[in-house]
């Protein structure tokens, strides 16, 4: 066991996978010699050679399209899209090609690819380096969508994603790369080296895709979150003193409905938290499912705490990013209802 940052955990997952299966290849913009702008692929080219880890032209559609072709051949490409915001030129290849090849060919061809992409805000990235496009993927049948919240999960889920026979979108909250940011921007971030979830086995292990994790037990209200917002929700629970149960979804598609329903039936209240914009965001799906499955157990309306329905601003980032204060207000509101 070693203490790892999320960057190191992601790198370790690729390293372990490349060592175990020579069909695993890693490519994307700047990932080869340089090791990626966040250094997630550092050292992989030197270790596995430049035909297994290499730089790609700045053409996201080309990167995803060639990955699909490689997968059709029999390789297992693990691709980096430099920022989730840059995946739009590849959206057609992701949603209408990768997602559907198995279905449309009746299994004649398959598409076991992983598309890693740093997601979310909190680093003063402005509107084109801060987006959370997960709902654009969860609406697409044929994809799997993962958002880890810590190094341990990131490694176990990424190895599972690489070994998965279907296309997996792996959204890495870049604000969590170095430590469990809790939404208090004025405080220094505790590094993962001082957090138990920074304890990551060096070898091979997987975490099943589609299983949520209860991060905090509670009886008063269920908070459903993923990625950076898991830590914000935990902080809000501590600071308000409200006995909240915090669920880390980890996998949005497929979704662990059972864990959600079990918790909400116990608490009778529910708040969904995410960074992405409110309207038609993933929180809407969760709220609808809670209503459908837990209606007679609910003691107050399901609330959502999210980013605003605007592009992500640069200078006003902290007023956009849902912090523990806003989550705390929602918790208080559902408790009063």
């Amino acid at each position, binding site marked *: 066991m070693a203490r790892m940052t999320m960057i190191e955990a992601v790198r370790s997952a690729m390293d372990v996978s490349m060592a175990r299966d020579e069909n695993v290849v890693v490519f994307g913009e700047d990932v080869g010699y340089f090791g990626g702008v966040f250094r997630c692929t550092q050292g992989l080219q030197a270790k596995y050679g430049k035909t297994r880890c290499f730089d790609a032209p700045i053409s996201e*559609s080309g990167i995803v399209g060639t990955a699909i072709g490689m997968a059709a*051949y029999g390789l297992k490409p693990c691709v980096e899209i430099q920022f989730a915001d840059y995946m739009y030129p590849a959206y057609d290849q992701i949603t209408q090609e990768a997602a559907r090849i198995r279905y449309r060919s009746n299994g004649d061809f398959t598409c076991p690819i992983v598309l890693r992409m740093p997601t979310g805000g909190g680093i003063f990235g402005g509107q084109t380096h801060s987006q959370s496009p997960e709902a654009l993927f969860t609406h697409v049948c044929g994809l799997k969508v993962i958002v880890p919240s810590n190094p341990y999960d990131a490694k176990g889920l990424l190895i599972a994603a690489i070994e998965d026979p279907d296309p997996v979108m792996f959204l890495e909250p870049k604000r969590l790369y170095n430590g469990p940011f809790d939404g208090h921007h004025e405080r220094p971030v505790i590094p993962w080296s001082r957090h138990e979830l920074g304890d990551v086995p060096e070898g091979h292990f997987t975490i099943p895709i589609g299983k949520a994790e209860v991060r905090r037990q509670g009886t008063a209200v269920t908070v459903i979150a993923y990625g950076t917002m898991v830590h914000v929700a935990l902080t809000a629970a501590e600071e308000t003193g409200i006995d909240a149960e915090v669920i880390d979804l980890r996998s949005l598609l497929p979704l662990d409905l059972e864990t959600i329903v079990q918790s909400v039936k116990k608490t009778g209240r529910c708040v969904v938290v995410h960074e992405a914009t409110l309207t038609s965001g993933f929180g809407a799906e969760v709220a609808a499912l809670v209503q459908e499955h837990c209606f007679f157990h609910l003691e107050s309306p399901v609330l959502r705490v999210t980013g605003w329905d605007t592009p992500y601003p640069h200078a006003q980032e902290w007023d956009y990013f849902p912090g523990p204060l806003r989550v705390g207000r929602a918790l208080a509101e559902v408790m009063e209802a």
Partner: protein
Amino acid sequence: MNEHAHLSLHVPEPAVRPGGQPDFSNVKNARAGAVPRPDVDAAPETIRDLAYSIIRVLNRDGEAVGPWAGLLTDQDLLTGLRNMMKLRAFDARMLMAQRQGKTSFYMQHLGEEAVSCAFRKALEKGDMNFPTYRQAGLLIADDYPMVEMMNQIFSNESDPLRGRQLPIMYSSKEHGFFTISGNLATQYVQAVGWAMASAIKNDTRIAAAWIGDGSTAESDFHSALVFASTYKAPVILNIVNNQWAISTFQGIARGGSGTFAARGLGFGIPALRVDGNDYLAVYAVARWAAERARRNLGPTLIEYVTYRVGAHSTSDDPSAYRPKTESEAWPLGDPVLRLKKHLILRGSWSEERHTQAEAEIMDEVIQAQKQAEGHGTLHAGGRPSVRDIFEGVYAEMPSHIRRQRQKAGY
């Protein structure tokens, strides 16, 4: 005050519209046999002219002439002729079946049979095509069963794709035919990825990418050229220039470029332009490109100059946008008639045998159709199960889809 004249937008137009006299003066009909055949390892910059000329083997008299001739035996050519005739007969029957309401949609190959049929012959088992909707000749020439193709077109109970795909969007890994997408150009870059994978694994197999003239405007076409050029992928990049992208003439996508083949030059990719209605020329050029790819010399771009005689699809009416007689004026002739003439000239074929072969082939197609219709058509007889809607979205069915399947009663 602005001293400059007002600007105006240039919108290209074809030479003629319905009611006018067909005009193909833009097709520089080079003499058969006139274009040199470079060595396969020729440096791209030394063969730039090949992107502007048209490689032709069969001349007006039906003779095979020049440096690209002499690669195929009589038996090869007779098989080639038979494949093209089969595709034409298949098209005729399926077009009729669509008109009879047995399927929703069909796309025929009329006039373009040589492109896919001759190309297939240049590939080996295990190579992979990433086709568009007008390369069924790749399957026909590889002896893929016509009944299976028809089952797919009829979306019947034996449809290998379980009713999920639009008719003619076949898939056969075994026959080197990647599942067709309705979205244009997506397959072009995927082919490059497949070829890169083959190179990464030090394999011997190569890939072929297919696109129409109109779809070269899609960004994936350009992405594919960047990747193919950068990694020297063992891929043949095919552009079928059949003059029309539904109602839009080829000049719209081509822009100011001299030819579609010339697109390859900026990427340092050897680019050849070939008479797409000449079975021998198509084969010769495809073999040249395949050999280059197999010798690890990288990609080749080929523009097939041809003409879409039929409508774009059964939902299209070409008389609304081009002269009805335009196909007759096409200067490169009909691929079936040209090969037939050549074989007769060689003494290995005759009018009588051709007529007889036409009847035999049509009988074969009709028998296949009867067999396929025995499994059902779109609105009659056997059809895939509703359960098939829910299967195969993922390798393993997740619980939310299972719940929906159960809700649907399956």
